[in-house]
């Protein structure tokens, strides 16, 4: 079952912060975050494993709440380069081979 992302779209001014959520009704083993710019390949950001850990990548970090089966992506002090569509990909079982079920995406626009 497809995870649900919220919000669907967000517009920021450069330097502002944003949070993107990814929720699943099923138990998850891991959550993967990707950013895709129009006409380009999705680019890997980070993986969160069950256990509630938080990871960081430059000014982008994420957390995974196993109780809620929800992951959140935090973008701080946004830059113009952060614009794009963000997807979470969920993995339900370690033995799934890495098969990901993606959310519908969150479109982020950062304006000067």
């Amino acid at each position: 079952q497809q995870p649900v992302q919220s919000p669907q779209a967000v517009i920021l001014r450069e330097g502002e912060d944003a949070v993107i959520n990814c929720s699943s009704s099923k138990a998850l083993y891991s959550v993967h975050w990707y950013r895709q710019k129009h006409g380009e390949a999705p680019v890997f950001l980070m993986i969160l494993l069950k256990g509630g850990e938080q990871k960081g990548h430059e000014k982008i970090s994420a957390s995974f709440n196993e109780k809620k089966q929800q992951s959140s992506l935090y973008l701080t002090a946004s830059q113009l380069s952060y614009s794009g569509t963000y997807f979470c990909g969920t993995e339900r079982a370690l033995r799934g081979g890495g098969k990901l079920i993606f959310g519908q995406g969150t479109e982020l626009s950062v304006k000067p």
Partner: protein
Amino acid sequence: GAGVSQSPRYKVAKRGQDVALRCDPISGHVSLFWYQQALGQGPEFLTYFQNEAQLDKSGLPSDRFFAERPEGSVSTLKIQRTQQEDSAVYLCASSLGTGTQPQHFGDGTRLSIL
């Protein structure tokens, strides 16, 4: 090259024709995935290979879709008797090992069926 390479970049075909889409993964990557991405949607899983073995093809929409990876490197996704609803971007991704690993995507093949 350093990344995942897909060809052709764009493909236009008439309804009923067969098409073949190629994916050249990162050298040494064991796992290879095919996804279908409709406009404005997230990628949707089609099939997965570990080396030359196709371990999961649960996402293939119909028996018109067929994928292979005969030598455990390059993969081909073939669609027979194409239909308009097959129009989409087809993404290939590879990862170093099995299980939970970052997947590295190619730029995709944009398929348009007229």
